[in-house]
Protein backbone atom coordinates (compact mmCIF):
# COMPACT_ATOMS: atom_id res chain seq x y z
CA UNK A 1 0.00 0.00 0.00
CA UNK A 2 2.42 2.63 -1.20
CA UNK A 3 -0.15 5.36 -1.76
CA UNK A 4 -3.48 5.72 0.01
CA UNK A 5 -5.99 7.88 -1.83
CA UNK A 6 -8.54 9.83 0.18
CA UNK A 7 -11.62 11.81 -0.75
CA UNK A 8 -12.29 14.81 1.50
CA UNK A 9 -15.86 15.95 0.84
CA UNK A 10 -16.72 19.40 2.18
CA UNK A 11 -20.48 19.96 2.37
CA UNK A 12 -20.69 22.67 5.05
CA UNK A 13 -20.13 26.33 4.22
CA UNK A 14 -16.99 27.98 5.52
CA UNK A 15 -16.76 30.35 8.49
CA UNK A 16 -19.68 29.60 10.78
CA UNK A 17 -18.16 26.52 12.37
CA UNK A 18 -14.72 24.99 12.13
CA UNK A 19 -15.36 21.74 10.28
CA UNK A 20 -15.10 23.00 6.72
CA UNK A 21 -11.92 24.91 7.49
CA UNK A 22 -10.34 21.92 9.24
CA UNK A 23 -10.97 19.87 6.09
CA UNK A 24 -8.59 22.13 4.20
CA UNK A 25 -5.86 22.28 6.81
CA UNK A 26 -5.99 18.52 7.32
CA UNK A 27 -5.66 17.99 3.56
CA UNK A 28 -2.64 20.31 3.42
CA UNK A 29 -0.92 18.28 6.14
CA UNK A 30 -0.50 15.42 3.63
CA UNK A 31 2.72 17.17 2.80
CA UNK A 32 4.39 16.46 6.13
CA UNK A 33 2.97 13.03 6.93
CA UNK A 34 5.98 11.32 5.36
CA UNK A 35 7.93 11.72 8.60
CA UNK A 36 5.47 9.24 10.13
CA UNK A 37 5.47 6.75 7.21
CA UNK A 38 7.92 4.29 5.71
CA UNK A 39 9.88 5.24 2.61
CA UNK A 40 7.67 5.29 -0.46
CA UNK A 41 4.45 5.44 1.51
CA UNK A 42 2.19 8.40 0.80
CA UNK A 43 -1.30 9.70 1.47
CA UNK A 44 -3.05 11.67 -1.28
CA UNK A 45 -6.24 13.52 -0.43
CA UNK A 46 -8.50 15.00 -3.07
CA UNK A 47 -10.37 17.98 -1.70
CA UNK A 48 -13.92 18.13 -3.07
CA UNK A 49 -16.58 20.79 -2.42
CA UNK A 50 -20.27 20.01 -2.86
CA UNK A 51 -23.62 21.45 -1.80
CA UNK A 52 -23.33 24.44 0.53
CA UNK A 53 -19.62 23.67 0.77
CA UNK A 54 -19.10 25.57 -2.50
CA UNK A 55 -20.36 28.80 -0.94
CA UNK A 56 -17.24 29.72 1.00
CA UNK A 57 -14.73 29.62 -1.83
CA UNK A 58 -15.18 32.94 -3.60
CA UNK A 59 -12.30 35.28 -4.31
CA UNK A 60 -11.98 38.56 -2.47
CA UNK A 61 -12.46 37.36 1.12
CA UNK A 62 -11.66 39.80 3.90
CA UNK A 63 -11.16 37.52 6.85
CA UNK A 64 -7.86 38.98 8.04
CA UNK A 65 -9.04 42.58 7.85
CA UNK A 66 -12.39 41.96 9.53
CA UNK A 67 -11.83 39.08 11.92
CA UNK A 68 -8.05 38.74 12.11
CA UNK A 69 -8.10 35.20 10.79
CA UNK A 70 -6.68 33.43 7.77
CA UNK A 71 -9.27 33.39 4.99
CA UNK A 72 -10.48 30.27 3.25
CA UNK A 73 -9.23 31.89 0.07
CA UNK A 74 -5.75 31.96 1.51
CA UNK A 75 -6.05 28.34 2.70
CA UNK A 76 -7.15 27.40 -0.84
CA UNK A 77 -4.10 29.06 -2.32
CA UNK A 78 -1.90 27.03 -0.01
CA UNK A 79 -3.74 23.92 -1.10
CA UNK A 80 -2.92 24.63 -4.72
CA UNK A 81 0.67 25.51 -3.86
CA UNK A 82 1.21 22.10 -2.24
CA UNK A 83 -0.15 20.56 -5.42
CA UNK A 84 -3.37 19.04 -4.12
CA UNK A 85 -6.27 18.26 -6.44
CA UNK A 86 -9.27 20.47 -5.64
CA UNK A 87 -12.61 19.59 -7.25
CA UNK A 88 -15.62 21.90 -7.02
CA UNK A 89 -19.05 20.66 -8.06
CA UNK A 90 -20.22 22.50 -11.18
CA UNK A 91 -23.93 21.79 -10.63
CA UNK A 92 -23.73 23.38 -7.18
CA UNK A 93 -21.89 26.47 -8.42
CA UNK A 94 -24.59 26.83 -11.08
CA UNK A 95 -27.33 26.31 -8.53
CA UNK A 96 -26.04 29.19 -6.44
CA UNK A 97 -25.16 31.36 -9.44
CA UNK A 98 -21.42 31.47 -8.71
CA UNK A 99 -19.28 31.88 -11.84
CA UNK A 100 -16.26 29.64 -12.33
CA UNK A 101 -13.95 32.63 -12.46
CA UNK A 102 -14.91 33.52 -8.89
CA UNK A 103 -12.79 30.57 -7.75
CA UNK A 104 -9.44 31.56 -6.19
CA UNK A 105 -6.17 30.71 -7.90
CA UNK A 106 -2.56 30.96 -6.82
CA UNK A 107 -1.11 32.14 -10.12
CA UNK A 108 0.73 35.08 -8.59
CA UNK A 109 2.42 32.68 -6.15
CA UNK A 110 3.57 30.50 -9.03
CA UNK A 111 1.24 27.55 -8.49
CA UNK A 112 0.60 25.34 -11.52
CA UNK A 113 -2.48 23.76 -10.02
CA UNK A 114 -5.90 25.26 -10.57
CA UNK A 115 -9.21 24.55 -8.90
CA UNK A 116 -11.10 22.11 -11.14
CA UNK A 117 -14.78 22.82 -11.62
CA UNK A 118 -16.25 19.42 -12.46
CA UNK A 119 -19.63 17.68 -12.71
CA UNK A 120 -20.68 15.73 -9.62
CA UNK A 121 -19.90 12.48 -11.44
CA UNK A 122 -16.20 13.35 -11.17
CA UNK A 123 -16.53 13.78 -7.42
CA UNK A 124 -18.38 10.49 -7.22
CA UNK A 125 -15.44 8.98 -9.13
CA UNK A 126 -12.99 10.47 -6.59
CA UNK A 127 -14.97 8.74 -3.84
CA UNK A 128 -14.95 5.45 -5.73
CA UNK A 129 -11.20 5.60 -6.30
CA UNK A 130 -10.39 6.61 -2.75
CA UNK A 131 -9.69 4.04 -0.09
CA UNK A 132 -11.51 6.20 2.46
CA UNK A 133 -14.04 9.02 2.27
CA UNK A 134 -14.22 11.77 4.91
CA UNK A 135 -17.20 14.13 5.03
CA UNK A 136 -16.74 17.56 6.56
Amino acid at each position, binding site marked *: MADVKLAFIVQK*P*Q*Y*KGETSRLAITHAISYQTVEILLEDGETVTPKLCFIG*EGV*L*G*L*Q*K*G*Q*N*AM*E*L*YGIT*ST*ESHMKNTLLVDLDVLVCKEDLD*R*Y*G*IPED*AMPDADEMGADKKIQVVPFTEIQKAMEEAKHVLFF
Partner: protein
Amino acid sequence: MKLGVFVSDFKLTVDTLDRLKAEKLGLILVQNGVYHATTKENGKASSLLEKTPNLYALSDDIQIRGLKVTDVDKRVKVVNYSDIVDLIFNDYDKVAWL
Protein backbone atom coordinates in the same frame (compact mmCIF):
# COMPACT_ATOMS: atom_id res chain seq x y z
CA MET B 1 -44.68 42.39 19.85
CA LYS B 2 -41.82 43.85 17.89
CA LEU B 3 -39.50 40.93 17.28
CA GLY B 4 -36.03 41.01 15.76
CA VAL B 5 -34.84 37.58 14.62
CA PHE B 6 -31.21 36.69 13.93
CA VAL B 7 -30.85 34.20 11.08
CA SER B 8 -27.41 32.58 11.20
CA ASP B 9 -27.78 29.66 8.80
CA PHE B 10 -28.57 29.41 5.14
CA LYS B 11 -30.70 26.29 4.91
CA LEU B 12 -32.18 26.61 8.35
CA THR B 13 -35.48 24.89 8.84
CA VAL B 14 -37.78 27.87 8.49
CA ASP B 15 -40.65 26.09 10.26
CA THR B 16 -40.37 28.28 13.33
CA LEU B 17 -40.05 31.45 11.33
CA ASP B 18 -43.08 30.57 9.24
CA ARG B 19 -45.28 30.46 12.31
CA LEU B 20 -43.98 33.43 14.26
CA LYS B 21 -46.28 36.42 14.27
CA ALA B 22 -45.27 39.93 15.24
CA GLU B 23 -46.68 43.37 14.53
CA LYS B 24 -43.19 44.24 13.48
CA LEU B 25 -40.83 41.48 12.40
CA GLY B 26 -37.19 42.16 11.60
CA LEU B 27 -34.78 39.64 10.12
CA ILE B 28 -31.12 40.24 10.81
CA LEU B 29 -29.02 38.04 8.55
CA VAL B 30 -25.68 37.11 10.11
CA GLN B 31 -23.02 34.43 9.45
CA ASN B 32 -24.27 32.01 6.77
CA GLY B 33 -27.62 33.75 7.00
CA VAL B 34 -26.20 36.48 4.75
CA TYR B 35 -26.43 34.09 1.79
CA HIS B 36 -30.19 34.67 1.93
CA ALA B 37 -29.42 38.25 0.88
CA THR B 38 -26.70 37.62 -1.68
CA THR B 39 -27.35 34.28 -3.30
CA LYS B 40 -30.07 33.16 -5.66
CA GLU B 41 -30.72 29.45 -5.71
CA ASN B 42 -31.54 28.33 -9.25
CA GLY B 43 -32.00 31.99 -10.07
CA LYS B 44 -34.54 32.55 -7.32
CA ALA B 45 -34.00 34.84 -4.34
CA SER B 46 -34.58 33.39 -0.86
CA SER B 47 -38.23 33.24 0.20
CA LEU B 48 -37.11 34.70 3.54
CA LEU B 49 -36.86 38.07 1.84
CA GLU B 50 -40.62 38.08 1.35
CA LYS B 51 -41.45 37.64 5.02
CA THR B 52 -41.02 41.23 6.06
CA PRO B 53 -39.83 44.57 4.69
CA ASN B 54 -37.45 44.87 7.67
CA LEU B 55 -34.37 43.05 6.39
CA TYR B 56 -30.78 43.60 7.48
CA ALA B 57 -27.49 41.84 6.71
CA LEU B 58 -24.22 42.18 8.58
CA SER B 59 -21.56 43.84 6.45
CA ASP B 60 -18.61 41.97 8.02
CA ASP B 61 -20.23 38.62 7.34
CA ILE B 62 -20.85 39.58 3.71
CA GLN B 63 -17.31 40.75 3.14
CA ILE B 64 -15.52 37.92 4.94
CA ARG B 65 -17.14 35.53 2.45
CA GLY B 66 -15.80 37.38 -0.59
CA LEU B 67 -19.28 38.71 -1.39
CA LYS B 68 -19.80 42.32 -2.32
CA VAL B 69 -22.30 44.78 -0.99
CA THR B 70 -23.45 45.15 -4.60
CA ASP B 71 -24.44 41.46 -4.52
CA VAL B 72 -26.98 42.17 -1.80
CA ASP B 73 -30.68 42.10 -2.72
CA LYS B 74 -32.05 45.62 -2.85
CA ARG B 75 -34.64 44.87 -0.18
CA VAL B 76 -31.91 44.23 2.40
CA LYS B 77 -30.13 46.97 4.30
CA VAL B 78 -26.46 46.37 4.99
CA VAL B 79 -25.58 47.13 8.62
CA ASN B 80 -22.59 46.94 10.96
CA TYR B 81 -22.37 45.81 14.60
CA SER B 82 -23.12 49.30 15.86
CA ASP B 83 -26.29 49.47 13.73
CA ILE B 84 -27.37 46.12 15.13
CA VAL B 85 -27.05 47.48 18.67
CA ASP B 86 -29.38 50.33 17.69
CA LEU B 87 -31.84 47.95 16.03
CA ILE B 88 -31.94 45.88 19.21
CA PHE B 89 -32.54 48.84 21.51
CA ASN B 90 -34.61 51.15 19.30
CA ASP B 91 -36.56 49.09 16.78
CA TYR B 92 -37.48 45.85 18.51
CA ASP B 93 -38.60 45.07 22.01
CA LYS B 94 -37.64 41.38 21.81
CA VAL B 95 -34.86 39.67 19.91
CA ALA B 96 -34.28 36.01 19.13
CA TRP B 97 -31.50 33.90 17.61
CA LEU B 98 -33.05 31.02 15.69
